[in-house]
């Protein structure tokens, strides 16, 4: 299922869209023209019919009508100012096609900010309330860098395609998905957006929930408690011990027991001893420290102070 997506993106990037006829003008000049045209408001006389007079043979243009943005009723742009709702007033573009229109995508001549102002004028809701302060906005990522409008279904909204889109830029996370343990993102059984809000949030790493731990609890509510006996680093921050995108150790752990536990515990009993065996001791084989202290996420047993019960 991933193959068609990759090819579609490549084709779109390399062959599907030829350079705009105004690409030799430079972005500053194009933006100046676009702002001027937008302020003048010289819209076409026939709306979409004016545009499609030339663009009807372009499959990508016509694919708009397969998707929600092509609906001619409701709140769709085609039910309003039609093509010019997003691409701006036609002006003199119909006289040879060289006068700039608002174009979209990572390689468009219109700035990301200008492109996004079009999208945000309709998509202004609680989900996107932190967009303006978000990492993607500050990095000048255009909505159309991730989203496709002239399609039946936007790939990034598909469970089987979203991770491929995100990891085109987030390559470190893509690599970590294939480590010994990871969340099941490499099989598309979990999506980046299960934890992150790409449109920004006020939580670190643009997480969906109020905190990192709250995000983890949305699938791991058994760890939430509160429990009678708490393990401080657990309630402090799940990432004290776990790496969410992948690890060379089991269970997404930063290191394995006993050495991980011994990075915080060196009492005068067994925690202080050196272990280096070949799995031939109850301190290293099986669950290592967890053979006895199995309740590392906290215990609700009256006798559970040592997280054994």
């Amino acid at each position: 299922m991933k193959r068609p997506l990759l090819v579609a993106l490549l084709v779109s990037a390399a062959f599907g869209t030829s350079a705009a006829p105004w690409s030799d003008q430079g972005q500053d000049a194009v933006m100046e023209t676009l702002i001027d045209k937008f302020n003048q408001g010289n819209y076409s006389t026939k709306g979409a019919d004016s545009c499609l007079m030339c663009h009807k043979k372009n499959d990508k243009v016509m694919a708009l009508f397969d998707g929600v943005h092509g609906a001619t009723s409701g709140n769709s742009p085609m039910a309003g100012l039609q093509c010019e709702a997003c691409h701006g007033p036609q002006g003199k573009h119909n006289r040879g096609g060289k006068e700039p229109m608002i174009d979209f995508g990572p390689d468009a001549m219109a700035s990301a900010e200008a492109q996004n102002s079009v999208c945000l004028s309709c998509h202004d809701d609680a989900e996107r309330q932190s967009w303006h302060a978000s990492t993607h906005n500050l990095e000048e990522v255009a909505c159309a860098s991730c989203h496709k409008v002239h399609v039946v279904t936007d790939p990034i909204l598909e469970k089987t395609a979203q991770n491929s889109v995100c990891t085109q830029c987030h390559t470190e996370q893509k690599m970590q998905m294939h480590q010994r343990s990871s969340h099941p993102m490499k099989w598309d059984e979990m999506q980046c957006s299960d934890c992150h809000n790409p449109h920004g949030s006020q939580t670190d790493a643009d997480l969906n929930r109020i905190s990192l731990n709250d995000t983890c609890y949305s699938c791991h509510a058994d760890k939430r408690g509160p429990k009678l006996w708490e393990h401080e680093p657990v309630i402090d921050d799940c990432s004290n011990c776990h790496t969410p995108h992948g690890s060379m150790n089991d269970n997404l752990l930063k290191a394995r027991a006993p050495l991980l536990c011994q990075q915080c515990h060196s009492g005068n009993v067994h925690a202080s001893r050196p272990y280096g065996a070949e799995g031939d001791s109850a301190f290293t084989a099986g669950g290592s420290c967890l053979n006895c202290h199995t309740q590392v996420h906290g215990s609700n047993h009256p006798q559970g102070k040592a997280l054994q019960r």
Partner: protein
Amino acid sequence: MKLNLITLAILTAATPVLAADFSLSKANTDKISADKWQCKRCVAPSNLSGDIAIGAGYTELDDVHAGNALGQEEDGAFGALNGRVTANSDNGWRTTATAHNLGMDNGDAGLSTGNGSVKLYADYRQLNKLDSDKASTPYYFSGDQLVSGPSYSPVLGTERNRVSLGISASTDLAGFSVDGDLGYRTEEKQGHKVVSVTTPSPVNLAKPVDSRTDELTATTSVAGDNWLAALSYLGSVYDNDTQEVYHNTYGSLLAPEPDNEAHQVTLSGNLRGQSGVFDGRVSLGRMIQDSALVNAQTSPIQSWDGQVDTLDMDARYTLMATSRLRVQLAGRYSERDNQSSSFEFPQYDFNATTGLVSENVLLDREDTRGSAKVQYRLAKGYRLDAGYQFDRKERSHSARETTDEHLLWAGLKLTDLDLWKVELKGGLSQRDGSRYQANDLSSSEENPLLRKYHLADRDRIEAEVKLRHQPMASLSVDLNLQFADDDYTDTELGLTGATDYGYQLAISYLVNKQLSLYGFAGQQWIDADQNGDGWSAEINDEFVSLGGGFEYAGLLQDRLTVGGDYLFANSDSSSSNSGAANSQFDDYYQYSHSVGLFAQYRLSERSHLRLDYRYERYYDTDYASVAVDAVEGLVTLGDLDHNYNAHQLMLSYSISL
């Protein structure tokens, strides 16, 4: 620093900003004669569209773990339904049904309908995570009783069945845009997981998992031209149907994860000025559990009132001071207030240090943070970024009550070079804090020289480089490098240092409209050093992944498309301990080869026949995974290492509506 930036922001705010805003609400529509717009060339969407694929296949595997990759955990034939069908009605409603691997062990299906103002959806998903079917144990669970019998092999892993339902609606009210969302999700989780009990010698068990989590979310928002306010509620209830582990001889061995619930109410919003945007959030939360305690006859209470209240406040101001300068100031305060009751509980007297009576400690936590970030455009395509962050964390009953962390970073982004994009970023951080102390509640059992790594003084250096080279539109090469070094400057015992570095290289080449190629490689190394009492240890983790693929669409008069993907991944962790007789830990590594091949033949304009083949070669080994009775005094679940080849062949017929 922060004050200076605020002053700078205020001074530069007076400079006019040339922001391009093509919002629909700002469009100059005075000259439009929309009544003449007929849209004769527009194409009405068909009443019914989409693709449906029906497939039949065969999986050959001898390890249930292969089911993670292949979506089918048993040997033999299977059927699968994939597709997406959309129905458009004349009154503007659009209804979509989707299916992905429906009929297989990991699959999902969805149904949604909407008309632009109202949307309803229902989603079903089954997610299986399978660890092993090689476990061996003589222990059974009869209610809460642990009983022994003939050995058997429970499948370790969990199956999640998730159903989501929701409705969202938007309307204009008194000139404002009003949105509402209501969502409900229920997830049942069943299977077996590894736990261990002490009798007092440890016994590993495959404990049943049987729980349900229900979640309700509700959000309403109101938006004006330059502001938005949202009020949301999140409620989550966890219900565990498993019981304690009780043994006739050894008594109550293990408490279950308690039923619990969490509630959060959040008020958030933004206010957008001509050059600055403020966004903020205040959230109040409460986590509760009052499950009956197990083994309560030894406890002063029958059930414990656990309650944790949380408060989270965030505020940010993002200022586009000039066309070149952007400044962001942010602050955060979060608090965890444990309001639970506290009692003295007699403890299991396993060793002298555990003590006979202990009081449950109520852990509180506060986090206060302030940060400033500056982006300055030196010239078109040249941007300089810099930032500073201060983070203070205060923890009650901790070995260190307060930690302070300062982070300073800077970056350079070059996007206007001919054929190249370059990003450089580097940062320094330093963590220190209050006196590290041993106190009765936290660390009387610890060596006073020990510094827990999440509390210890730490200096960190990190750097990142991103390079993108695109010599032509059809060819791109990306190289990303990361480096981070942690030095725990005041640690004699514990983690003393760690270095994490790696790279990812990716090449995409679209040879022509028929043939595309891609390849990638990535490596990561993590080296950590730690000291114990009279010994030192090293951990060296190493990972490599590489792969590639192709797709060719030009065979049999363009009717046949073939493609393939290959991925190799190898995780290796080696450790040594200078103080141990056998200083080198034994093997702990994993590798896999994943191959996917397909051929798709176009039977007609609207139908295709597709053959998929997938191969998974998987191997992992862990020195700790030993036979049930290999270690005296320890009962394990047996050797759980994996070593398998798995194949899957699937033929599917698809039709476009």
